[in-house]
């Protein structure tokens, strides 16, 4: 640009870059470095250990379990997307009071995960509200209430239900923005041609929404692989709910093995980067969707 010295640009960027380098860039590089070393938190000393952490993780039953749980968390993706799309279609109409419902459905997104979790812990307790509800509609008998957050078979799914409740509003807004870009003409043409609501959805709206569906799916896929805070605040990782990042956190702050934690973190990072590469391939400047493919 004319008349603007590059030095000015660097001055504008420097403050951001300094903090960014220390707290975002450095952690990534440090994590990479740490993954190949034994680190002693007391002294701050460290030692190269080759691929020992990787070998340890490969043999670790706990890490394998945590990875498996992270993958099970992916089961959350389809209900989250279908639910969000259904909600978006529901609140897309111009009706009195519709803004209230949009805000209502978004509310869990803006509540702190820890605060929401305390309520859900009470709801899902062995003698909690949810079991009373199931009993009152005779879905379960007296004395056979499941312990939703303590049962190894159930706890992970209970956490996923919480995650659905917490996040579905976010994806709803995503789809709502997408619905606003659906062209009106083909919709009206389809209506005149006698297409019913389902046919219009199937043949006009869904194709137009395809980029949003893909974006939502990929975002929630990455989010599911990163599942972490929900688990920490609801079960603390008990009852077989450890996910990969919960494993990282536990190994670092309770096992004090920063090197091993960094290695597990690196593996999660690589998986997320691979997914992001897929995402960029679809959404980037030369992405498949831009070329109409």
């Amino acid at each position, binding site marked *: 640009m004319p*008349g*603007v010295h*590059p030095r000015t*640009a*660097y001055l*504008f*960027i420097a403050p*951001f*870059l300094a*903090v*960014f380098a220390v707290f*975002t*860039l*450095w952690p*990534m590089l*440090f*994590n990479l470095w*740490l993954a190949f070393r034994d680190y002693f938190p007391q002294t701050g000393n460290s030692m190269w250990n080759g691929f020992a952490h990787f070998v340890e993780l490969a043999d670790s039953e706990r890490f394998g379990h945590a990875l498996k749980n992270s993958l099970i968390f992916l089961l959350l993706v389809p209900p989250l997307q279908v639910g969000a799309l259904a909600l978006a279609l*529901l609140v897309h*109409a111009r*009706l009195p009071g519709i803004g209230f*419902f949009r*805000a*209502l*459905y*978004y*509310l869990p997104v*803006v*509540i*702190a*995960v820890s*605060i929401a*979790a*305390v*309520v859900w812990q009470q709801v899902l307790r062995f*003698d909690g*509200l949810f079991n*009373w509800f199931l*009993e*009152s509609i005779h879905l379960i008998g007296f004395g056979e209430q499941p312990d939703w957050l303590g049962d190894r078979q159930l706890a992970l799914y209970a956490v996923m239900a919480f995650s659905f409740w917490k996040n579905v509003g*976010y994806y709803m*807004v*995503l789809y709502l923005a*997408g619905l606003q*870009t659906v062209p009106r003409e083909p919709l009206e043409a389809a209506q005149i041609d006698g297409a019913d609501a389902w046919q219009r959805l199937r043949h006009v709206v869904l194709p137009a929404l395809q*980029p949003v569906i893909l974006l939502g799916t990929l975002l929630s896929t990455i989010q599911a692989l*990163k599942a*972490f*805070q929900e688990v920490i605040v609801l079960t603390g990782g008990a009852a077989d709910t450890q996910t990969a*990042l919960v494993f*990282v956190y536990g190994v*670092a*702050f309770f096992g004090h093995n920063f090197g091993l934690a960094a290695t597990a*973190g690196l593996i999660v*990072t690589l998986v*997320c980067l691979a997914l*992001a590469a897929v995402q960029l391939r679809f*959404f980037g*400047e030369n992405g498949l*969707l831009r070329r109409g493919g």
Partner: protein
Amino acid sequence: MNRELVLTLPLVSPHTYLLRRQARDAVLALPRYAALLLFGAFTVFPFWWAAAVALSGDGSQIWTFPAAFLPHDPGWRWFGRVFHEMPFWRYFANSLLIATATTALVLLLTIPCAYALSRMAFRGRQALFMLLLATLMVPAEVAIVPNFITCSRLGLLDSYAGVVLPNVAGAFGVFLMRQAFQDTPAEVLDAARVDGAGEFGVMWRVAVPMAKPMIATLAVFTFVAAWNDYLWPAVVLKERLNMPLAVGIFNDLTGPFAVSTNLVMAAIVLSVIPVVGAFALTQRVFLGGGGLVRPRPSCSR
């Protein structure tokens, strides 16, 4: 549907006609409202129940299914005990301080950087952009361990600076503001330059006012995220009285303090009220998407 039918209008006043049409639309919309309310119940039942329990002086009914949703022997007693047994206002002030400081610093650092990225030519611009893009893809949770080590080396553990600093320079805000500055017409900026304004003046007096909606969006999102942040403050802070609400309340409520569910729920309700109030005031920012949730994330150069 057909507006020509309005020709029969003179029989009724336009106002009555409008009312009738609204009534007809409302009847047609009944199934939709039923669905809206049903899902609304799913969204809101934890808060509703928490409020009912918090207001119940009689704690015997709080688990029975339909009865629990109405307060029994209603009163404010439990709220009083929250203030009495928990440093609620201290937590609240901590949250306010942390969220305000984070928001101010984010704006201070992000705006000039995004402005330079979108409005100035310099070596390494493309590289910096790609670097920012790359960090968006890596799970931020991975940075917790290294940042903990950094903060302990810098002596920032158990300090507000340690809570705030790692969250003030993220790629996300830069992308958002860069978008806004790119939409500013070049002629306006050039006119200011011709008038002799320095580059900082151009940004501050011309570009920033024009980007106000996006700046507000960034501010609201940052504030809410900082207010709700649980994990990082929990890792950095040791001293109970330094905790923000999201951490302090959670620790107190899941620890030995949790003697009575009524008390727990009263504390929950108190901590949710400011969030709900702030959300009600700013919900346009969230629901409008504010450019954050564009159908296609803009990766254009």
